[in-house]
């Protein structure tokens, strides 16, 4: 027999009250946990995916769409740009690195990206098996693609036109898997990478021209796609990712790009900040809702303790007569409030993680976005500590009352 057992028995003696207090608090805590896990992972994901990319240059349209499409591979392309125009920008002295992207096809919803090896380097990708793509129609696939589509090295597949399943298949050519990239928790996990020429040839159904084999003394290879001439006027790409050589780039390049009639430049940092400020409203409302739940549960705990104390005045007095000190009673009430919030917050944290685990199992998008319920953040200790504080705060007034119980007056009846 000790105080813990006493408190436990008191909680057990009022199961409904105890349950409602725990449920109320745990719901609030669960919402906060879900928001914390979701937001933190999403933000981390976004910064990881946008790292090293200072500017995205593409066709005119929504800058947010340009970023979503070309960095996160979530939205549709804004259109194509001329390789020659992109080439001009890539030769600007403020550009350190320029990576071409050619989008348009997919395989089982996994996007096929025509690009250069610099794209994989950007994410510090490493091979799990096989090799990097080198020839036309060679592809190296991301870890999730390999896992979920079942593609292996040596497999051939026809791509579908468009970025959603159900587009018409390009049956003339087939891609060959030559390598699988190690899982590195970036967008690469969900992508199929090949060279730009593969994407071009896939779409030039029938016409096989290998122009640059003609001897041409004025041939200057493109920086972006070395197999074609820098001044080629027919080839198009979807976009170009740019890394600045110096901070001056941030000032001059976007203006320079946007002044060209057919191009637009979008900054990932700026656009993602804008995206978060749009999403932030929803998050704030949910957060406020969670805090309201927590405050209500705090009140409910306070009222429960306060009321039960009225019923327990005799218990208190009797315990004092049996030798309990004032501080023992004081502590027992604090323990009761603390126990309620401890259970509530632990259950809430588990619920939060559980919901995300369920979500990632049931919703493919969550899994693709790499959001997991099995991640723990130090902020969860803050949640736990905070709710314990709440428990103590709510029980302090009842505890003081218990401390002040006038034993003689209560025991003499009346």
């Amino acid at each position, binding site marked *: 027999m000790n105080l813990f057992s006493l408190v436990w028995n008191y909680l057990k003696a009022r199961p409904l009250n105890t349950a409602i207090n725990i449920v109320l608090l745990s719901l609030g805590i669960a919402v906060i946990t879900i928001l914390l896990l979701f937001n933190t992972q999403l933000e981390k994901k976004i910064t990881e995916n946008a790292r090293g990319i200072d500017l995205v240059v593409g066709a005119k349209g929504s800058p947010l769409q340009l970023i979503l499409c070309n960095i996160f591979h979530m939205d549709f392309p804004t259109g194509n740009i001329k390789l020659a125009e992109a080439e001009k920008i890539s030769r600007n002295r403020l550009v350190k690195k320029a990576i071409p992207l050619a989008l348009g096809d997919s395989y089982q919803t996994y996007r096929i990206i025509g690009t250069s090896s610099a794209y994989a380097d950007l994410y510090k990708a490493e091979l799990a098996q096989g090799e990097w793509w080198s020839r036309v129609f060679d592809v190296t696939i991301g870890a999730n693609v390999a896992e979920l589509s079942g593609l292996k090295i040596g497999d051939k597949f026809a791509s579908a036109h468009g970025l959603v399943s159900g587009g018409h298949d390009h049956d003339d050519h087939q891609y060959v898997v030559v390598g699988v990239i190690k899982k590195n928790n970036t967008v690469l996990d969900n992508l199929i990478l090949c060279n730009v020429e593969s994407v071009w040839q896939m779409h030039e159904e029938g016409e096989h021209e290998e122009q640059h084999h003609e001897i041409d003394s004025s041939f200057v290879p493109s920086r972006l796609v070395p197999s074609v001439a820098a001044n080629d006027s027919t080839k198009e790409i979807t976009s170009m990712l740019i890394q600045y050589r110096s901070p001056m780039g941030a000032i001059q390049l976007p203006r320079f790009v946007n002044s060209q009639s057919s191009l637009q430049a979008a900054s990932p940092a700026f656009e993602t900040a804008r995206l978060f400020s749009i999403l932030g409203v929803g998050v704030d409302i949910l957060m406020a809702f969670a805090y309201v739940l927590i405050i209500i549960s705090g009140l409910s705990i306070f009222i429960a303790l306060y009321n039960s104390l009225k019923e327990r005045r005799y218990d208190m*007095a*009797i315990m004092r*007569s049996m030798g309990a*000190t*004032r501080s023992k009673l004081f502590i027992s009430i604090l323990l009761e409030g603390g126990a309620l919030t401890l259970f509530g917050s632990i259950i809430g944290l588990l619920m939060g993680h559980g919901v995300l685990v369920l979500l990632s199992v049931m919703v493919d998008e969550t899994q693709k976005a790499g959001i997991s319920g099995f991640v723990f953040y130090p902020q969860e200790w803050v949640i736990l500590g905070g709710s314990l504080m709440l428990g103590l705060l709510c029980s302090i007034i009842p505890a003081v009352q218990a401390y002040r119980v006038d034993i003689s007056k209560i025991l*003499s*009846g009346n």
Partner: protein
Amino acid sequence: MIQISSLSFSYAPQSTLRFPDVEVKKGENILLLGESGSGKTTLLHLMGGLLRQYSGSVKVDETELSMLSESSLDKFRGQKIGFIFQKNHLINALSVEKNLAMASYLAGLPVSTERIEHVLESLGLAEKRKSKVTELSQGQAQRVAIARAVLNKPSIIFADEPTSALDDKNCNKVIDLLLNVASQNQSTLIVATHDQRLRDKISNQLKLQ
């Protein structure tokens, strides 16, 4: 065991209760008689250390109660004194056994299952050990309260109106039981009551006006 001299107590500045000097020896039982409002319960609470701000002297077991600090008085009470009240005041959230265990724990004594079993058995409650307090009859509840009061083998047992709500038959049973357990545990029994039926049971009497 108990010495009281020139004791008075005030609930309010205008009304002061004065008590006669009393001395109770070890193993002696005493009946405090008096009408309602005569100060029986107050005297009982003073002797039991439930009330502190008195003038005069209350010595229990050679200890002047007003000299003890609040927490040492709590401990003193827990270890040396057992209380039985008119209402049983068992803790409803706990089982019979845990109600008894609480008495040892709160007094700062080790909880002994054998002692609990022994005391329950001697009061005919052996099979009620695991029962909920709310499932007991009133008579059983009163016996549990008595068991709780004697569990720590207190030097003194204070009983405040233990029989006034009972019929003659049960009244006799309870007072006999009290006298019996008090003598078994070598405790001094002090009963405060206005119940005239108890006059024949305890010869040593103190009448409060």
